[in-house]
């Protein structure tokens, strides 16, 4: 056993750190640090900077313009990016669709779509969830019926994250109703500018509208936009979910949140003392830090196995459950640390308005919205209850 990174890995970390110090724009880091919302332009700006360095597509082969990092290198980048307050990369094109195209798509599809993800020409969103389906992904009702050289798509997707910015959506659609649920699904790429596609935002508990409903009304999709074979989409969907799920434990986010929380707790007065000397708060803070220390190692154990070529299977379910619970606890503590200053709702401030003051300390305005927003962690990507079922079946064999 050796808990240290290799010299090469440490050198890589230093390189990442200095790149971030030199290239991450202050106005973007500042928004991320304060939990403010990033605009589409912010995201595109940062993506372009990373792409110029060849670091936007961490897991893609170099031949397609990726960085071809292994799991440990990706983790190092993730940690450093979080600590530098770089924004989270929107995963839909980069880490969800691209691996599916690389594994199952045609060369024509790769040549057509991958460069446009890197250049920012395309913004992808994910059409998996449907009303009434939730984590039961195979309960796809959206129909795609072949009509000549087009599929005609009818149905509705929901919880489509950042769909308001997207011009393409990858969808699970039902192409066969005669077979068992999972056997009749196909994986289809749909241009959102096609007639019949409607996007409607859903305002959420945190006051923001990062998710949408997407409606398909006789939308005609050329057959060349089918990935792989018709009716085999479930295989690709599962591949997307289990093989390319990166940073599932969210350790980098937790590290950054813990650093913020400690800073806040040391600088918030509570009963004449800093909050970190309040025994109840200090105990909760210490316990989450202790759990996170173990989580870092649990994560690295899975990652270093993955870097050696063993695909993480059900272990990623363990990382998801524990990692999301930790992140939620951290946001819960930050909300608590803000005290009464967690109460004002300041959408203009959170939307990044330069001339808008926070009512309390700068970190406090986003504390409650972030806390509420992060309730999603244990719901999306397969609810934590689904993960527990996977663990009990795949690992415990119950």
């Amino acid at each position: 056993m050796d808990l240290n990174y290799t010299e090469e890995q440490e050198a890589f970390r230093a390189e990442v750190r200095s790149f971030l110090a030199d290239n991450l724009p202050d106005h973007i880091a500042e928004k991320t640090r304060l939990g403010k919302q990033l605009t589409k332009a912010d995201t595109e700006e940062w993506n372009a900077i990373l792409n110029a360095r060849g670091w936007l597509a961490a897991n893609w082969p170099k031949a397609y313009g990726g960085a071809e990092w292994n799991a440990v290198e990706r983790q190092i980048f993730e940690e450093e990016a979080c600590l530098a307050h770089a924004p989270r990369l929107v995963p839909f094109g980069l880490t969800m669709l691209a691996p599916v195209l690389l594994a199952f798509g045609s060369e024509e599809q790769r040549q057509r779509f991958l460069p446009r993800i890197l250049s920012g020409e395309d913004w992808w969103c994910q059409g998996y969830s449907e009303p009434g389906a939730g984590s039961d992904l195979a309960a796809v009702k959206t129909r795609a019926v072949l009509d000549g050289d087009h599929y005609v798509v009818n149905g509705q997707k929901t919880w489509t994250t950042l769909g308001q910015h997207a011009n393409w959506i990858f969808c699970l659609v039902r192409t066969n109703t005669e077979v068992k649920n999972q056997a009749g699904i196909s994986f289809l790429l749909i241009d959102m500018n096609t007639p019949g596609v409607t996007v409607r935002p859903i305002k959420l508990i945190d006051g923001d509208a990062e998710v949408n409903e997407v409606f398909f009304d006789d939308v005609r999709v050329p057959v060349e936009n089918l990935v792989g074979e018709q009716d085999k989409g479930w295989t690709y969907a599962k591949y997307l979910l289990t093989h390319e799920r990166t940073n599932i434990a969210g350790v980098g986010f937790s590290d950054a949140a813990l650093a913020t929380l400690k800073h806040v707790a040391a600088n918030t007065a509570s009963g004449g003392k800093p909050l970190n000397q309040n025994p109840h708060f200090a105990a909760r803070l210490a316990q989450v830090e202790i759990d996170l220390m173990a989580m870092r190692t649990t994560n690295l154990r899975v990652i270093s196995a993955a870097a050696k070529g063993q695909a993480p299977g059900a272990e990623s379910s363990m990382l998801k459950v524990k990692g999301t619970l930790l992140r939620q606890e951290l946001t819960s503590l930050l909300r608590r640390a803000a005290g009464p200053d967690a109460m004002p709702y300041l959408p203009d401030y959170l939307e990044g308005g330069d001339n808008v003051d926070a009512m309390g300390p700068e970190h406090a305005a986003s504390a409650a919205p972030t806390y509420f927003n992060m309730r999603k962690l244990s719901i999306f990507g397969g609810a934590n209850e689904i993960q527990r079922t996977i663990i009990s079946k795949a690992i415990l064999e119950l």
Partner: protein
Amino acid sequence: MDFNLTEERTMLQDMLQRFLAERYDHEARRKLLESGTAYDADILNELAELGILGAIFSEEDGGFGGAGFDISVVFEEFGRAGVIEPILASAVLGGSLVAALGNDEQKELIEAVVGGQSVLALAHGEPTARYDLSDVRTTAAADGNAIVLNGTKTHVINGGQAGKLIVSARESGADTDHVGISLFMVSSDAPGVSINAYQNVDGTSAARVDLTDVRLSAADRLGDAGAAFEAIETAIARGTLAVSAEALGAMDAAKDLTVGYLKERKQFGVPIGKFQALQHRMADVLIEIEQARSAVVNLAGHMEADAATRDLHVSATKNLIGRVGTLVAEETIQMHGGIGMTDEYALSHFARRLTMIDHLFGDVDHHLERFIALSAASGGQL
């Protein structure tokens, strides 16, 4: 970064696993405990012959290991099998202190410890100390050339079986000062030493030791006068790693028994493992055990770090092990139902050991508080 054991440690683990699977029968262990015997001397000797005690010591001290990962490999297997032989007391606690502070003559004792011929015990705890390692009120007073010990030592692990006790006593300073504490090697049959041995809830053996005008010479002191505290902290850190790894092994064993039971036991016509309520609880138990495994790796990997870093990991790990150990014990009993509460079934023994380990070297609350203090002292930097 490499989370695999070295080849040597993998061999050690395989050998120990095979030996314990063959020779460490739960039924025999239970009968032994019922008879009031503290441990099986034959087993101790066989473990010594296999070199297991040697793994606790560095080459320089007469062993072939001595690092954090050597301790964790051995004790994880002990935990899985429920080993009660006095290796924590003799090799990890007593032996570590002799190795750290002893002169050449005193260190000769280690050979006998490694060989299983000699058993040591650390007599450090006191009635008022709870988990405070510096609370030492037993006195060591000079009387001419002699040193005279007076006081009471409690919860001395294997104190009833040890030939020699390593006794802490205060030569100067106030009751809880770090400075002023010395360690002495005291024969258990020395005049004035009264040992009252008893069995713990988990079947391990401990003793209360009363010292009344026990006369020693300066040659019985380990290291310099009044300067033993750091070595005691180090030995207890090693002991904490040992019981944390032992707890991990016990958790694994309790988990395996429970998963087996969930598949076998039928209610309402189906194996109870088909019920989602139990599947999810078992999944949570598994997740937490993986966290416990990571915590043990963290502590083992920092055992040779500077004391501040090491102790931060000692407290983090022991806090987490205490939480998870209790969870595993309580949940696996619940999932077994009544059978999990019977003495005859191994689960109850793992549950008892897991729960009692929280009372050794500081419990969940003690180590949470200590972690907060250490973290504040280090400026929050890990």
